[in-house]
């Protein structure tokens, strides 16, 4: 299939009026939840699961994708105007973005943010277009051992990057796998751990779990941050245009961040948040005035905001071509695809090319829509920020309740959600990272299936190591998991040696 062929297919699907509408709704919703702290793309995507049944697969994916990268646009608004990140991917934007707002330069900060996001987002989609075919071609030769090893690698990266304590991340991973095993076993049909509850026979639903962990828990925790006076800085559309100097100062950061984000986004754990932080560090290193970072340096806004969007786009490569989610939100998105009966992976491109390329085409268009949504409509978003949190949290509660119920038209899921709300709250209090837990939970069915199929092939664990691709990924995964422990031990030994050495002198 030639490049031009793919390109034209991408746009003929994407420009279909109904698909355009879906993209618009997705982008709008994404921006909205990006702006609103406390509700994020994961929860929103889950909320929409019941609606997905009414839409065609391509319509759902276009909309859900729009929500995902749209949220990265919207989240910069709160970071800059209120110093509260709408999404973690914009946390680092709070530093220089808010500083700029305090100096009366909120407009250019928002403007550069949106433009950088657009450039980064579009760049990543271009990369996606060129990377996808060879990636899918490679992946199509994957058998169960390779699929398992890549997934294992992905999970281990996420576990490693999750938090300070490796042991806690691993515990969360194991717990997530156990949770995922509740329900009907794909390979044998046996019903596991359902405790006689009909509502558990199909597994613990992803919707109530995500609603609980991200929606309910978030609100329960938010009550504990000091009630902040929302000092919202005003920003008008005509103020949004950056000066010539701003452009000059932002050009290189945006370029660097586009490449950086697109690269990092391909790897598990390299999501918008990590990309934004790394971009900030990179820009500080490259800057002629690193001491100015934190006081309102525009590179500190341009870089991270470009990087987070760029990585959001790139993340679709492993998801669509390999079926591997690189972040928690992508994992939830994967859940959404599965609801539609779509199995992302190399076969998707072969069997449903119009779906695959249509999504990519709509991502181009989505980025354009988002530029339009985020610049002229900035006034609306600012007004929305002024809604008092008590009303907002009540609404989020209600949406979560509705979402949980409509998952299966079953009140049982509401109770599951409440349980996970408490679980999520406790996880935060006891300092356990959520990412390995939820990704292990989402991936468990596939993880177990590939594991079982591989063992059936050979009868022992060697199969994962005898095939080159599988061996590479498996070994890297194991290395990642044991590295912290080993390096800890080595450090202790070094300190001991040094102490004895010093003692002898």
């Amino acid at each position, binding site marked *: 299939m030639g490049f031009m062929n793919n390109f034209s297919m991408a746009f003929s699907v994407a420009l279909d009026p109904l698909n355009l509408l879906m993209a618009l709704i997705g982008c709008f919703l994404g921006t909205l939840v990006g702006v609103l702290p406390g509700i994020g793309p994961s929860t929103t995507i889950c909320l929409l699961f*019941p*609606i997905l049944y*009414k839409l065609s697969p391509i319509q759902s994916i276009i909309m859900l994708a729009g929500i995902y990268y749209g949220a990265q646009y919207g989240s910069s608004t709160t970071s800059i105007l209120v110093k509260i990140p709408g999404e973690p991917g914009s946390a680092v934007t709070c530093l220089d973005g808010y500083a700029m707002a305090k100096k009366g330069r909120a407009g250019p900060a928002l403007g550069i943010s949106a433009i950088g996001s657009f450039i980064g987002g579009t760049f990543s989609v271009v990369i996606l277009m060129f990377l996808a075919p060879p990636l899918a071609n490679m992946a199509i030769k994957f058998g169960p051992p390779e699929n398992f090893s890549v997934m294992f690698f992905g999970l281990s990266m996420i576990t490693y990057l999750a938090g300070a304590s490796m*042991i*806690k991340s*691993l*515990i969360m991973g*194991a*717990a997530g*796998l*156990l949770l995922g*095993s509740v329900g009907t*076993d794909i*390979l*044998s049909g*046996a019903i*596991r*751990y359902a405790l006689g509850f009909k509502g558990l026979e199909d597994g613990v639903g992803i919707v109530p779990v995500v609603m609980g962990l991200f929606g*309910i828990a978030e*609100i*329960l925790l938010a*009550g*504990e941050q000091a009630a902040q006076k929302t000092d919202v800085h005003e920003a008008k559309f005509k103020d949004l245009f950056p000066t010539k100097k701003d452009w000059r100062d932002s050009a290189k950061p945006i370029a660097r961040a586009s490449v950086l984000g697109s690269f990092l986004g391909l790897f598990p754990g390299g999501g918008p948040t990590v990309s934004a932080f790394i971009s900030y560090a990179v820009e500080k290193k490259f800057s002629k005035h690193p001491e100015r970072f934190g006081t309102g340096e525009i590179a500190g806004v341009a870089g991270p905001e470009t990087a987070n969007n760029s990585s959001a786009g790139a993340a679709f490569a492993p998801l669509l071509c390999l079926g591997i989610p690189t972040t928690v939100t992508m994992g939830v998105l994967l859940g959404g695809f599965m609801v539609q009966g779509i199995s992302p992976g190399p076969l998707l491109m072969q069997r449903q090319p119009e779906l695959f390329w249509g999504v990519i085409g709509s991502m181009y268009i989505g980025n354009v829509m988002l530029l339009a949504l985020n610049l002229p409509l900035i006034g609306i978003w600012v007004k929305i920020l002024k809604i008092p949190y*008590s*009303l907002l*949290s*009540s*609404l989020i*509660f*209600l949406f979560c*309740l*509705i979402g949980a*119920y*409509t998952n299966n*038209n079953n*009140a049982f899921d*509401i*109770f599951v*959600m*409440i349980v996970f*709300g*408490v679980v999520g*709250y406790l996880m935060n*209090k*006891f*300092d*356990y990272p959520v990412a390995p837990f939820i990704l292990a939970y989402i991936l468990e069915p596939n*993880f*177990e299936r590939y*594991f*079982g199929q591989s*063992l*059936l092939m050979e*009868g*022992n*664990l060697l199969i994962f190591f005898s095939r080159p691709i599988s061996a590479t990924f498996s070994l890297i995964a194991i290395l990642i998991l044991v590295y912290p422990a080993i390096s800890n031990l080595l450090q202790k030994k070094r300190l001991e040696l040094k102490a004895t050495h010093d003692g002898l002198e």
Partner: protein
Amino acid sequence: MRSRDIVSSLFFIGMGIIFSIGAVEYGIGNLGHPGPGFLPLLAGGLLIVLSSLHLFFSLVKKGKVEIEQIEQFFPEKDSLKKKSLALFGLFAYGILLEPLGYGITTFLFMIFILKFVGSQRWITAFLGAFLVCISSYILFVYLLKAQMPTGILAF
């Protein structure tokens, strides 16, 4: 906090044990032909090992283990009360939704949440609940055709 680490690792050890017992019951099979309990046993065993390690490391750290007070766990004033009320409200919604129907349950829930958790005045709570009830009904039931129970009101 060490005390939290100790408590949580004990919990996970317990969880690992329970799941592992279940796994053995479901049948482990063997390496060539894994049964339904195979992966759960692996994961459960891993959980037991890891949490035991974590427990060990938490116990051998230097210094006293402080028993935490409830106030430290819930730092904000009223925090425990509000959270319990919120959870109660959610729970009540789950119980009442099917018998009473979407409209009434949502209305009652919103009043409860706005008034008791959000600390709004009665009038705000009523108005807010009314507005949300109507608009959410239009959005979810009418436009999006979600199947919400009608309960005692035949909407």
